[in-house]
């Protein structure tokens, strides 16, 4: 169970200061799949990086199983991280290692299992993502979609309690998306893993989520079960779900008004 209270994060200083998260509150329940939805640049990855202790917030607290991880030192954080499995947006596989070594790394480093057991476990995880037989390949020799699935296999190799997925299905074909969705769901339902999924893919979010949190400019605009989100009357939610170009959510990334910014520009000749 992860609870986030009053999280605030800004990047940059002075003129370039940008508020990415402001007064962010959320609960991620144990054994459930929670999806974080939102447009590009809305702060989804930033929320995730706070939960895994990569960013320190300006203020607020993040509790993992009752422990506040904000301000923890490296050793304390490492203890918490052993409960985690993380699938990165870019895969982040180690390029100098083979697929097998990648998936086996957490097992080799954090357990005392013997080589044979490790080999068997790696095979099992690779079978789960449908890539048994790719053991000897290097990350540069496999496709983008396969990279993601191997990244997932590595994330679950230690049987973590909490798994974070950053865009698990971006760039995959429909069948692979289906497979990954099923996998995320099974991990939560059958093994009681808490899943936190950051995604753009509406269809897959509606399929797998027990709860959806919708973000816009670092603020939660709606949260609830997929049904509640689908029936929401909030114009921002409606715009996002239907993919309408015009509506309350602007396309521009800037936090300042366009007209104001133009007026402030001085012209030299």
């Amino acid at each position, binding site marked *: 169970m992860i609870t986030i209270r009053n999280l605030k994060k800004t990047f940059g200083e002075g003129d370039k200061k940008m508020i990415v998260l402001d007064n962010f509150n959320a609960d991620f329940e144990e054994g459930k799949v929670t999806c974080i939805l939102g447009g590009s640049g809305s702060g989804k990855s930033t929320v995730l990086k706070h939960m*895994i*202790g*990569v960013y320190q917030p300006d203020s607020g607290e993040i509790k993992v199983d009752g422990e506040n991880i904000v301000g923890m030192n490296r050793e304390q954080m*490492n*203890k918490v*991280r*052993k409960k*985690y499995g*993380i699938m*990165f*947006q*870019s895969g*982040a*596989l*180690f*390029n100098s290692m083979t697929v097998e070594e990648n998936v086996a*790394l*957490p097992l080799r*480093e*954090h357990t005392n299992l013997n080589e044979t057991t490790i080999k068997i476990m790696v095979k099992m995880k690779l079978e789960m993502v449908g890539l048994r037989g790719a053991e000897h390949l290097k990350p540069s020799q496999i496709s983008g979609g396969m990279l993601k699935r191997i990244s997932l296999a590595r994330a679950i190799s230690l049987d973590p309690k909490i798994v974070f997925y950053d865009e698990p299905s971006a760039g995959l074909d429909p069948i692979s998306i289906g497979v990954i969705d099923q996998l995320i769901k099974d991990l939560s339902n059958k093994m009681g893993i808490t899943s936190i999924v950051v995604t753009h893919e509406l269809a897959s979010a509606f399929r797998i989520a027990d709860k959806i949190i919708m973000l816009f400019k670092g603020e939660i605009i709606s949260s609830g079960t997929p049904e509640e989100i689908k029936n929401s009357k909030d114009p921002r939610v409606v715009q996002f779900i239907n993919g309408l170009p015009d509506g309350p959510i602007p396309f521009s990334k800037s936090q300042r008004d366009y007209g104001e910014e133009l007026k402030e520009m001085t012209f030299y000749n």
Partner: protein
Amino acid sequence: MTAQFFGYIGRKTFRIKDTFADLFKEISGVYHLTRHTLYCSFIEPLRGKPIKWGSMWIQMEEVGVKSALIVFLTLFLIGVILAIQTAYQMSQFGAIEYVGALVGVAITRELGPLMAALVMAGRVGAAFTAELGTMKVSDEILALETMALDPVKFLIVPRFLALIVMLPCLTILGNLMGIFGGFLVGVTTLGIDPIIYMDRSIEALQVKDVFSGLFKSGMFALIIVMIGSYLAFVIEGGAEKVGQNTRSAVVTSMILIIISDMVFTAFFFFLE
């Protein structure tokens, strides 16, 4: 006009202040990384957390064996050049047989460690920054950290240990190549008697010359690895930054090598 002038000065001063603040930040960053690396290489193994021997062997081959040829060639040629250059001066004093002594001492005390380190800064330092920088950009270092694994221990320590063993080894062998280069020129072109050449060389060389040279090359190894890794670990952004920092790593470590060489030379000079 005056206001503009003072404004200009004021801005300049602030900029200088900022530059110093940035410089100080970098120095303290390198210091902390170095301390952590030394801790992981020498103290943690005593506490039952063994070093990654596998990656250390790979790195030793990468930085040592594969750089041997270029280091040997460089020092061999330095020996040849040094012999020819000094022969002219020495012959004016009628002391041409002392060419051997001069070449031997200059190479073991100074040029051997220095040239080997400079060659390695270009060859190995650049490779470290490029490799680790790419890992940083593609979130691999982040992935290590979030798996509760220490990137310093995984990536820097094997490279550090490999270089601190291999650079002194290469330096010793390179010294021999340099002396051999001088010897070849001495006995052929300059026509010095081989026995006399060797005698003069051995007379002049002392054990402490060899050791001061090795001490230096150990320090140079530390500089190459720490600057290379630090500049890789601070990369934020993309491939462009990897290129920039690789260049800075080579330039910075070369300059630091020369500066510290001067400091140590002065130190050993006054020690005697």
